[in-house]
C-alpha cells in the first residue's frame, strides 16, 4: 500500500495520534503502540515544578521513538502561535508544526483569517506547517497556495466525536486539491468515521479523544488501526458504480420454473 507523505517524509501508518486525555501515561503508551501510529502530537506548557517539569511524559515519548508533531493548541493570536512554534522547534528539534489558532472559544473553531497570516510567516521562516482549519475550500486553497503541502480540515469541532459533519465540503476540498496531503483533524469519534474519511480520499486522520476517552483506549486504538487500513484500501480499490435500480447478482438465465405457470 502506498505510503503517507508529509513534506517529503514517508510513513506506513496513516493514523496520527494525540497524547492527551488518557487515563494514565502507561495506557497512553500502550494505545499509541497499538494504533501503529508513527506520528504523535504533543504540546508545550509552562513548566510545573509539581510534575517535575513533565519529565515522566517526556521520557515515555522519547522511548516510543516516533515522529513528533508539536501543536500550538490554545493560541489565539498570530504572535502567540509564531512564538510557540519557535519554542517548539528549538525544544523538539523539528520544523514541523501543527498550527492551531483558535478563533472562537466556544466551538474551538480555527480563525481562518489569522491562520493564513501565521502560516505565511512560519513557512517563510522555514517551518513545515500543518494547519488545522475549517472545511472551507477557499481557505484550504489559500493555504496550499502559500506553500502548505499538508492541510488538516476538521471533521467536527475538537473533542466532539461527531464524525464528518460536512462530507460534501470535505470531498470538494479533496477534488480541488488533488496534490495536497489532506488529513482530517478533529471530530472523529468512531472507527467508521475514519473509514469514511479515507473513502473520501483523505490521506490520513489525526485523532486523540476517540481513543483516549474510549472505555478501552488500547482496544480502540487497535480498531482505528484497522479502520485506517480498511478505509484506505477500500478507496484504492475503487467503489462499484452506484445505481438507483436493483440488479440481481445471481444470474436469472437458467432459472428453473421460469415462466412455467
Amino acid at each position, binding site marked *: 500500500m502506498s505510503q503517507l507523505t508529509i513534506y517529503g517524509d514517508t510513513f506506513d501508518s496513516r493514523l496520527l495520534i494525540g497524547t492527551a486525555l488518557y487515563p494514565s501515561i502507561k495506557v497512553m503508551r500502550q494505545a499509541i503502540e497499538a494504533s501503529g501510529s508513527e506520528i504523535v502530537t504533543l504540546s508545550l*506548557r509552562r*513548566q510545573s515544578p509539581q510534575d517535575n517539569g*513533565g519529565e515522566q*511524559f517526556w521520557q515515555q515519548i522519547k522511548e516510543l521513538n516516533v515522529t513528533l508533531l508539536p501543536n500550538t493548541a490554545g493560541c489565539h493570536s498570530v*504572535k502567540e502561535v509564531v*512564538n510557540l512554534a519557535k519554542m517548539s522547534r*528549538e*525544544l523538539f528539534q523539528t520544523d514541523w508544526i501543527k498550527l492551531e489558532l483558535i478563533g472562537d472559544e466556544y466551538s474551538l473553531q480555527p480563525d481562518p483569517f489569522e491562520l493564513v497570516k501565521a502560516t505565511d510567516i512560519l513557512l517563510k521562516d522555514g517551518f513545515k506547517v500543518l494547519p488545522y482549519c475549517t472545511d472551507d475550500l477557499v481557505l484550504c486553497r489559500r493555504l496550499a497556495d502559500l506553500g502548505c503541502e499538508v492541510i488538516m480540515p476538521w471533521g467536527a469541532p475538537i473533542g466532539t466525536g461527531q464524525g464528518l459533519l460536512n462530507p460534501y465540503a470535505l470531498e470538494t476540498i479533496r477534488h480541488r486539491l488533488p496534490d495536497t496531503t489532506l488529513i482530517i483533524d478533529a471530530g472523529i469519534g468512531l472507527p467508521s468515521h475514519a473509514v469514511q474519511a479515507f473513502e473520501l480520499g483523505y490521506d490520513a486522520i489525526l485523532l486523540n479523544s476517540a481513543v483516549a476517552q474510549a472505555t478501552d483506549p488500547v482496544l480502540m486504538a487497535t480498531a482505528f488501526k484497522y479502520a485506517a487500513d480498511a478505509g484506505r484500501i477500500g478507496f484504492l480499490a475503487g467503489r462499484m458504480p452506484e445505481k438507483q435500480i436493483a440488479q440481481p447478482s445471481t444470474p436469472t438465465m437458467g432459472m428453473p420454473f421460469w415462466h412455467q405457470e
Partner: protein
Amino acid sequence: MKLFFNGEPHSIELADVAGHQRQLDTKSALSLSSILVHFAVKPPFAVALNGEFVANNNYQTTLIKENDKVDVVSPIFGG
C-alpha cells in the same frame, strides 16, 4: 526587582540570584540564564521573554528588566 515567572509575580534580590552577570548589569539587569538557574528550571525547556521566543544561545546575553515576563515551557500531552 520584580518580574513575572510563568505568570506568577516574584520579587528577587540580585544577591539571591546565583551566577548573575554583574559585568552586564546596569543597576537592575540580570541575565536570563541567571534567572533560569535561580528558578531551578529543568530541561528540556524553551523560553519566551515578554511573549517573544528567546533562542537558547541568547540566554547569557539577554537581560531581564523590571516587570519583565519570563515564560519557560516544557513538553506536555497534546492532541
